[in-house]
């Protein structure tokens, strides 16, 4: 039984943490072949070859595969699908864009955001913003799966597996890339950070968010935000944590001026230690917090930053 794993490649570079977590999740399903695609992907393929559990890497470099446009990448995966019983990827926005398209082309259902592997056909996934966990058994010949990275530990390193170059399939030419707006940051990546400091509507403005960022920098943490904070323009969209944003499970999550709506909790309640700072002692965030501090964030956050 064989697994084809779509590695997460951004601008030619392997997103190691997300890919290694998906490899760890997929290992028990069979021999893992990692697929690296992009306008350039050779360096990513070399890096993927060193993830423990990868037995082979396929590398497809083609201008039409740049920026991971769904149509071209899905067509390539479908052309390879016959050799594999499982087609998997980390549950990133790229994979969420591509895998359902692959599944429909193969006439199979997709299993998104899988948080547990029971056996080769049976998987657990959260539904209703994580308020229920469903165990489902697939009757399809090919199982197309995205793995929720926050629930798996990243696979380690190994001596490099062989890399094979393959060619792209014909590009259907349905879409083209225009531009990316990606903010460069020295901070750790939100989904792999050991500590996350998140701010909500209570922070009040984009300028005030500097306070959240100062605390994060003191702790070497990534910065997160609630939907309300993103909608209000205090923080960029890629900081959103929750049901429809990123799912994180760091060692420490500090929620500041966040009420704790279920949609937010869906993205952080598996964190190891949760701290909440909120002036409303009734705020639902306190129900999931290990340590709750009822205080005005404008007093508490600078003090905390200083004393840590």
């Amino acid at each position, binding site marked *: 039984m064989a697994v084809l794993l779509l590695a997460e490649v951004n601008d030619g570079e392997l997103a190691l943490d997300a890919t290694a977590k998906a490899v760890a999740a997929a290992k028990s399903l069979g021999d893992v072949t990692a697929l690296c695609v992009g306008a350039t992907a050779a360096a990513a393929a070399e890096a993927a070859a060193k993830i423990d559990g990868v037995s082979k890497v396929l590398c497809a470099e083609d201008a039409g595969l740049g920026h991971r446009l769904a149509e071209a990448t899905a067509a390539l995966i479908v052309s390879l699908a016959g050799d594999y019983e499982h087609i998997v990827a980390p549950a990133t926005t790229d994979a969420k864009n591509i895998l359902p398209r692959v599944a429909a082309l193969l006439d199979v259902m997709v299993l998104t955001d899988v948080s547990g592997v029971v056996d080769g056909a049976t998987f657990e996934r959260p539904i209703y913003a994580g308020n229920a966990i469903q165990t489902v058994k*697939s009757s399809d010949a090919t199982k197309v799966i995205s793995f929720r990275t926050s629930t798996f530990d990243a696979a380690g390193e190994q001596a490099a597996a062989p890399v094979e170059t393959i060619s792209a399939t014909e590009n259907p030419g349905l879409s083209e890339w225009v531009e990316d707006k990606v903010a460069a940051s020295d901070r750790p990546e939100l989904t792999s950070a050991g500590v996350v400091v998140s701010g909500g509507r209570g922070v009040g403005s984009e300028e005030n968010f500097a306070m959240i960022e100062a605390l994060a920098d003191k702790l070497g943490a990534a910065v997160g935000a609630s939907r309300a904070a993103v909608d209000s323009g205090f923080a960029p969209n890629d900081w959103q944590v929750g049901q429809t944003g990123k799912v994180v499970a760091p060692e420490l999550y500090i929620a500041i001026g966040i009420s704790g709506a279920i949609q937010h909790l869906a993205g952080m309640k598996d964190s190891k230690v949760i701290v909440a700072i909120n002036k409303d002692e009734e705020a639902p965030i306190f129900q999931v917090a290990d340590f709750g*501090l009822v205080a005005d964030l404008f007093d508490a956050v600078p003090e905390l930053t200083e004393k840590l």
Partner: protein
Amino acid sequence: MKVLVPVKRVIDYNVKVRVKADGSGVDLANVKMSMNPFDEIAVEEAIRLKEAGKADEIVAVSIGVKQSQETLRTALAMGADRAILVIAADDVHTDIEPLAVAKILAKIVEEEQPGLVLCGKQAIDNDMNATGQMVSALLGWSQATFASKLDIEGDAATVTREVDGGLQTIKVKMPAIVTVDLRLNEPRYASLPNIMKAKKKPMDEKTAADYGVDVSRRLEVVKTSEPAERAAGIKVGSVDELVAKLKEAGAV
């Protein structure tokens, strides 16, 4: 241009979900149901396209139980022109899988020939995030998912997408499938006169069998369980106490 907007009836996002004691699913009997919030955003966008003179007709479609007609009435009250209800289940607990929904939608697209299908990016019940991509695959159309901005000019649409790294803008050929994200717009509330008017707007009633689509599940639900509960925490009285507790717990 005609715009097709699929809408799903789901548990209201404010309702606390209860897992049934026998593990068979989530209790949906006598629970407040609403239009999937992402689908409201899709309906709103379609209406704005019509108001801008870029669309001339909005057709809302819902696939599910008979009660989904309430969801369609909401879409009509917001401003959709007509509706198609496809009855594919009798029990409110039956969730039709995205693949089957996509197959039915693809058939409806063949009949209706819209220039654009606007879907919500995910349904807040099964959290699948799949239907739009699947419709697009079945039709061989271009797809633009997680849209926070949509501009249609001639035979192409420029779409800004919310992705893990930030924002990506792509240009897709029309006809296209666009799935919408939270920040595309803020949906309007239907006014009372529009709710009254919506009652007279046409709603076709079909069944999954009319489209020759088998809706039986590919993913058998083995069980549904409660997530692990977190142990109760404590309140600390000061920043000093918080720092001490964090050090004690080895968290900093």
